[in-house]
């Protein structure tokens, strides 16, 4: 029945939103405030806008190569050997992505939910639970992405709505002292939070109805993500001082803990947010896990990525647990993630475009 997985347009939107919004949300205000003060929302919007051309390029690549999936187009464009090298880089990226995400989640769960449980158990159980879905094909993954996407919106909605009553929006002032020199760094920090849109490389070729509006869907998704990030950022600034934001590692969670509305038994919201949060992270992790498995299976020319997923369990586990503390996490997992992410998300599509254009010219 699943000879050719089929995906619909709306599901693409859901896939992008649910994959991208993940670990970045919690710590974005923190890292941004350190470089940009209380004007970080500018860089978020800028980053969102800058990704749109990349989305266009990716859509274009699939439009002019109808009926072929990412791996076929890659081989044709770059030749087998170079493409294999590219695949290896992508593999490293996705594995790093997974390790970083699961380690961050583990740290958080250990801190807020299960202080006496060893982090090994938390990480391993997460990888095992998500491996079930990751062994299936892209259409199932996309379905899952679409299913979880309202939950993510719910999460963001709760966070934003409950903080509005006590928010002091004057904290955003003054509006005009933007430190332009810091914008590039700010962009880099923001970009990490947008990582994950590369998933559409695997899903776009299978869209069956509405092939022309996939670009619109992607942009719509990106706009939603940017809006959520900006709102979250604004709401954090409205609640905390810049210094406090600089200190706090997880300002969004702190925000939820600090809301005090009368008449609600709001202490429960803490737990609800944490539970939703694990789901949000899962919706980010599963596509990346799937991607890692798929890419590896193509490197070795295997038919199905099922067994690779199983092999990846110990790999991701050990990589995730290798750094000892938060500083090492940043050094060993986050930095390569930034670089590899840029390569996969930005440079790769550009390379595709350049080679395709050159080939076109050569043909003429």
């Amino acid at each position, binding site marked *: 029945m699943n000879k050719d997985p089929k995906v619909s347009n709306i599901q693409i939107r859901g896939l992008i939103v649910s994959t991208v919004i993940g670990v970045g949300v919690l710590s974005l205000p923190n890292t941004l405030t350190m470089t940009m003060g209380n004007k970080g929302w500018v860089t978020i919007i800028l980053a969102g806008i800058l990704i749109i051309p990349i989305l266009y390029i990716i859509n274009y690549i699939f439009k002019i190569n109808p009926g072929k999936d990412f791996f076929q187009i890659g081989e044709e464009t770059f030749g087998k050997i170079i493409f294999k090298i590219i695949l290896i880089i992508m593999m490293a990226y996705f594995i790093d992505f997974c390790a970083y995400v699961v380690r961050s989640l583990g740290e958080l769960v250990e801190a807020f939910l299960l202080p006496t449980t060893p982090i090994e158990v938390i990480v391993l159980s997460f990888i095992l639970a998500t491996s079930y879905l990751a062994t299936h094909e892209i259409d199932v993954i996309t379905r899952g992405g679409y299913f979880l996407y309202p939950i993510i919106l719910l999460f963001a909605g709760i966070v934003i709505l409950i903080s509005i009553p006590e928010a002091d929006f004057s904290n955003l002032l003054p509006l005009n002292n933007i430190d332009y020199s810091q914008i590039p760094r700010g962009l880099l920090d923001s970009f990490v939070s947008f990582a994950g849109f590369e998933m559409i490389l695997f899903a776009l070729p299978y869209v069956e109805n509405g092939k022309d509006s996939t670009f619109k869907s992607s942009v719509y998704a990106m706009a939603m993500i940017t809006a959520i990030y900006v709102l979250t950022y604004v709401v954090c600034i409205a609640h905390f*001082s810049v*210094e406090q934001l600089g200190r706090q590692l997880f300002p969004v969670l702190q925000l939820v803990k600090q809301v005090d509305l009368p008449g609600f038994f709001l202490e429960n919201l803490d737990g609800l947010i944490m539970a939703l949060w694990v789901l949000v992270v899962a919706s980010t992790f599963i596509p990346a896990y799937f991607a890692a498995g798929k890419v590896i299976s193509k490197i070795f020319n295997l038919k199905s990525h099922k067994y690779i997923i199983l092999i990846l369990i110990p790999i991701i586990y050990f990589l995730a647990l290798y750094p000892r503390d938060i500083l090492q996490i940043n050094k060993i997992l986050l930095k390569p993630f930034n670089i590899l992410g840029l390569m996969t998300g930005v440079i790769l599509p550009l390379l595709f475009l350049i080679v395709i254009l050159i080939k076109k010219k050569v043909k003429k």
Partner: protein
Amino acid sequence: MVEINERIYPYAVGIDVNNAESSEGDSYMVTFSYPNIFSMGENATQEETIYAVLSTGSSLFDAAQNLTSNLQYPIYNKHLKVLVLSDAVARNPKNVLGIIDGLNRDYVINKMIQLVVTPKTAEELIFGKLKAKRQRTTEGVLYSILINRQNTSMFTPKTLANFIDDMDRTGVSTLPMASMVEDYVDIAGAGIFKNYQLIGYIDAKENEGIAMLNNRIRATGIDATYNGTDLSILATNIKTKKKLIDAENLKVEFLVKIEGQVHEFTLPQGNYTGIDTEEMLHDMEEAVENEVKMNIVNTLEILQKEYQADAIYLSDYLEKYHPNVWEQVKDNWDEVFLEAELEVDVEVVIERRGLTK
């Protein structure tokens, strides 16, 4: 996995300086108070509703740890509602910084914990409130008084988050002052903190002034004298706006707008028509305005001259709305604040007279 009835949930904690001789790094004396769950619910088997325990330690958490030698269940801090700092602890900025930092870092402690300062010792307050009368709530009398929105201006509750926020923005904050008055717990006035150090106290009236300027009062009563008689007003809506008049020599104007209604007024003999002329109303308003202005000016004096503490968020205002001015003055803010000319203009509108004229 620890069952819910196998933990202790203290709701108030007090920190004192440890004066014992063999301290050895245990610089604090910490007092916890927690409810006795055996006295609650249907199968209540015991009478005493609260317990208090005392321990020494190098921090709040260390003290809780040290208590494990004589408590049956572990302490779980998530439901701590009030933290009492004693005068001695608060006077030392290192202590305060350390405590605040610890609270900030901890995952479990709720950042909405109320902070309170007490002029004597925290131990006295906490043990004292055990015997205090008129307390029957599970959350404790301190917390209930603090959060009970009784529309009072005698104290302004501050949470940990508020305190840190104040310190980051202006370097100045006020914490309500609690003490045992005879057998009752009394919270009135505040302690002024500058750069994490307690520098002095203000009384309830001065607290009212500050609260008015910071838009922290919901409603309060104001007394004034009019025509030789007492006039009592209930102010229901108090809003203050700051306005920068002169940037060179810092001059800021505070416009306080008060809406109120008449609470009690002794009519002069022979006046049966009550408050019925515009002129009369106008005069009454003016009387109240003068009263309020006097109080606020007095409070500002104390803040400026005596404490040099910007508890009215002036620096925050400048930073947000007049960043250019802020750039110039921020380096020697203390001096600038001392010299700043703070004008007060009060406007009172008496809207309602109550049920009678």
